[in-house]
Structure formats: C-alpha cells, structure tokens
C-alpha cells in the first residue's frame, strides 16, 4: 500500500473520528465552564451514561445506533438536569471549586450505578465486523466512520446556528462572556443553566454512543476520555464552543499521528505513551497559553 494512503487511512481518518468524539464531549465541558464557571469532572461519565441509554434502547427496540441517538440524548439531558437539581444547585453559592470536588464524586456515583445495573462486561451495539468500503479505489473507510463524522458536523452546525441566531444562544454566550453583565440585562440565569445542561448532556450522549459504536461500551469508557476532552476544551480556550471543536480535532489527530513513523521505520512515540500525548499538550497549553489557542482576551 502506498505510504500516503496508509497515512490517510490508518492515521488521519481514525484521528478525525476520535477527534469528532472528543470535540462533542469538549463542547459540553466548555459550555458548562462558561456558564457555571466550574470544570465538570463527571462529564466523561455522563457520556458513558448516554452510551448505556442507547444500549438499552438498541436492546429493547433493535434500533440502528443513529436512531437510538435521540433517545440517548433525551435521557442523558434528563439525567443531567436531575444531577444539577439535586447536587450542583445547592452548592451554587459556594466557591466554584466546591462544585468541582462535588463533580468528582458525581462521576464516581454515575460509574458505580452503571456497574451496578449493567455489570462490568463490555457490551456492543453491533456484532460482527464491517469491512471497509473502497472510495475511488484509494480511501478505505468504514460506513460508521462516515456516519460519525457527518453527525458530528451536523450537530456542530446546529449548535452554531443556535448560538448565533436564537435568543437562548445569544444569552448563553452573554452569560459565558460576563455573568454579571448578563444578570444586569435581565437574562434568566436559571433557564440558561438548564439549557446548558441539556445541550452539554445531549452532545455528551452523542459522543458516548459514537465511542461505543466505534469500539465497545464499558463503564470506564467515559472517565478514560475525560482528560483528552479537558485537553481539547483547554486547547480551544475554556468557555469557547468553537475552540472546543477545533481543540477536539487537534487532540484526536495528535494522539494518532504521534505514533506515525515520521522519522524512519519506528513509531515516533511508543504507543504505551499514546494516552500521554493529550495530557502533555494540555499541560503545555495551561502553562503557555492558558486562554487557549485563539485566546486573545486576558481573563
């Protein structure tokens, strides 16, 4: 196989796929940070919950994973609203770090509940394998990857429209930019907080379903993704949904491309360190550009 094709098929495409998944998760993380001013450590486990909701739907009705998405989105949003109501809202007046600590515990509670209800085994949406389709005789892409990337793009465009053209979206951006200012102009913070949970939860659910579709569903899957997602959110600048989209793609690509044999025959970085790539980028970003790649504004 030609070297370029190997590069595209085995490094670039998987990088874009996992990048899309990271981006969907990171958008929720970054929106929540913008509106509620805290880092939601349970976001990865919200993703896991979404994947299990879809699993239940697929198991019950035998749906295609894409058709199970709306069900997963609704259920996950409801879950997020409940968590917000019972656990985060009572702490809202306390320093935001208390919320962060709380979310650490919520993450554990979600994971334990899933393990309790569904057990610890890995689950699958689809059995068997899908042979990849040849496009133009060169690209070999699996159908579900096309689905994943397209759905991710559609959702991101929808989010863009929401943020740009609806009153709710504008209000969200306003709160994210300056909570005090937004409160002065009479924007109802409570409604915005709820909307943020719904959007963040839904996108996390989609990310979880895609992750499970591409690999497998397992109780720790979301937690393991929390750090790459945080890295993506920080890369794009916390509080900036567009930054998170780009950040997700960059992290996804960086992870895959780090093991490409750029120089000679060996992988650039031992795959044992693959998970470290995201953390390293993240720590480096925090030190040199804490406002993200596109962050000109000083906080």
């Amino acid at each position, binding site marked *: 196989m030609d070297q370029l094709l190997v590069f595209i098929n085995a490094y670039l495409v998987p990088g874009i796929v996992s990048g899309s998944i990271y981006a969907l998760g990171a958008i929720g993380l970054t929106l929540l940070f913008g509106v509620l001013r*805290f*880092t939601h450590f349970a976001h990865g486990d919200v993703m896991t919950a979404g994947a299990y909701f879809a699993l239940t739907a697929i198991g019950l009705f035998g749906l295609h994973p894409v058709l199970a998405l709306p069900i997963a989105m609704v259920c996950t949003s409801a879950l997020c609203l409940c968590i917000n109501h019972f*656990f985060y809202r*009572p*702490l809202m007046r*306390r320093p*935001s*770090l*208390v919320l*962060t*600590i*709380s979310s*650490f*515990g*919520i*993450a*554990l*509670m979600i*994971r*334990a*509940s899933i*393990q*309790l209800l569904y057990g610890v085994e890995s689950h699958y949406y689809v059995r068997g394998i899908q042979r990849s389709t040849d496009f133009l005789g060169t690209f070999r892409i699996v159908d579900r990857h096309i689905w994943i990337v397209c759905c991710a793009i559609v959702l991101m465009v929808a989010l863009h429209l929401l943020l740009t053209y609806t009153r709710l979206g504008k209000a969200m951006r306003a709160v994210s930019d300056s909570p005090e200012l937004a409160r002065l102009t009479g924007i109802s913070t409570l409604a915005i907080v709820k909307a943020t949970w719904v959007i963040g939860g839904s996108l996390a659910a989609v990310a979880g379903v895609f992750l499970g579709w591409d690999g497998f569903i397992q109780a720790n899957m979301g937690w393991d993704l929390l*750090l790459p997602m*945080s*890295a993506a959110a*920080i890369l794009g600048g916390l509080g900036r949904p567009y930054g998170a989209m780009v950040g997700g793609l960059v992290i996804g690509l960086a992870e895959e491309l780090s093991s490409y044999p750029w120089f000679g025959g060996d992988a650039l970085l*031992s795959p*044992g*360190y693959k*998970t*470290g790539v995201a*953390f*390293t980028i*993240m*720590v480096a970003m*925090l*030190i040199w550009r*804490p406002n993200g790649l596109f962050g000109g504004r000083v906080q």
Partner: protein
Amino acid sequence: MEIFVGYGNYTIALATMIGIYSIMALGLNIQWGLTGLFNLGIAGFFAVGAYASAILTTSETPKHIGGFDLPVVLAWPLAMIAAAFIAWAVARICIRLRADYLAIATIGIGEILRLIFKNEQWATGGTRGISNISRPFEQLPGIWAPLAFLGVVLILAMVAYWLAERGRTSPWGRVVQAIRDNEPAARAAGKNVETFRIQGFVIGSAFMGLAGALTAHYFKFVGPEATDPLQVTFLVWVMLIVGGNGSNRGAMLGAAVIWTMWSASELFSSRLSGDWAHRAPFVRLFLVGLILQIMLQYFPDGLMPRQRQITARLPRKPTIDQPQSSHILPPF
C-alpha cells in the same frame, strides 16, 4: 482465642493504613486546607515516594534499577525529597494557574507519571512493579512484626501531625492562609505569593511521598496500579472533606473514619448472597460518592470544623491596657 488474635491483626492492619492515609490527608490539608492549592495528582507524588524508596532499598536485580541497598532510615527521607523535588518542578511551571486549571494540570501530571512508571521497565520494573521490598521489623515473631511496623507508622504520623500543626500555627501558616483567603491582599502585604505556594505544594507532596514509601514497605511491593487515582487521590480528598478541611486533626479523623468505613463495610457486604456479592463493591463506591455530596451540602466544615489560626503561645490578655502603649505610634 485464635479469633481474637485475628481481630488484633486486623485492627493493627487497619490502624497502619489509617496512619499512612493520615499522613497523606495531612499533606493534602497543607496544600488545600491551608494554601488553597487544588491538587488532584496526589497519586503521582505518592507513587514517586513509593518507587524511590523501593528502588533505593532493594538489592541488585536485572529487573529494574537497584542495588543501592540503603536502610529505610535513609531511604524514607530520600523518598520524601524525591517527591518534593518532582513537586517543586511541577509547581515551578503550574503554580500560577487558576485553581481548577491546576486541578486538571495535576491530574495530567499524575497520569504522565503513571505512564512513565508503567513503561520505563529498565527503571521501575514496568508493569510488574518491584517486589521483595524489605519491611522494617519483619523478622520479629508473630504479631510483633506488624505491631512494630504500626508503631513506626504511628510515630511518623504523629511527627507529621506535629509538623503540620506547628506549620499551621506559625507565621508561615498565617501567610499561606492569608494567600488562600485573599491573594491580592497578600501581594499588597509584600508576600511573594508564588514562593509560599510552592513551599506549601512541596511540603504537602513530601508528606504524600512519605506515605508512598511507607506503603511500599508495608506491602513489600509497588506496581503501577499504586497510582490508581480512585484509591489514592479520591479517597484522600473524601477523607479531608469529611474530616474538616483546614484542620489537621480533622484530616486525621477523616482518614480514620473513611478508611474504617471503606474497609469494614466489606465485612457486611461480603455476606450478601448470590449476585449481590458481586455488586456490593459498587454500592460501596456509590456510597462514598454520596457521602461526599452530603458532606459538601450539609456539613461544609466537616466533622471537625476548621481550626482558627492561633498565633502560637502568646499572652491572650494583651498588654494594651498598660498606659505607655497608647503613646506608641503604630508602626507606619
């Protein structure tokens, strides 16, 4: 009779772990309770201490760096220094970050450390870890061996408590708490905020390194699973929040309560029958998460409220009533 020896043994083991966790909780209290640093990478510094002490005390082996054969009295301080050094390097680059950024950065650094311990086989034994670590007093007969080690752990925990408490009541403790309460005012008061934060971070991490070293020698083994954030980082945080953030006594009490609950709850859950026996551990995890939520919402001060900063050993009845004092111009 045997059962009482057994309960004795179990109590000793429980107390040993409580001692080790108290040292970690005290370290976290210095970082979070006093200095206000959000460290979620406890496991990383714990593991640095554990591996450092393990490498320094084991004899020559082809499986990892070794052959230093140092006695523990030297290895433990060196393990603390190793953890402190790593913490210093981390703090130098991360200490200016806002609190939640610091949290994410420390998680990331903890993970990077874990990957290094796991992958650098020549140094750490890789995934197999380091076994056959010596434990002080292990040659004593019967129950005396664990009892003597418990004594060592408790003495070290008391020393750690003494150091933490003396630090808290000293002018240093006053400054770091001032920085925690209001950073700009501390800057305006001429305090080099970065320096004090780095000191708090390094001292706290040295405590964690000591706890790591003690654990490695207690288990006679250290492996990359030792850096599991759930068992180390999360549990220690729950201990501090439950015990009372900002209070050294609270940190120790939290360690005792949470570890006892964590350990003893299984004695009941393992009696559940059938499928529930598998699931009981998850109920346990869920409950730990729930306890944290309840404490945060309803008992924000923990079991033992934050101790007031008390300037140590000064006359509480001031000399202000003496006539000459009012004639002294305040030191402007």
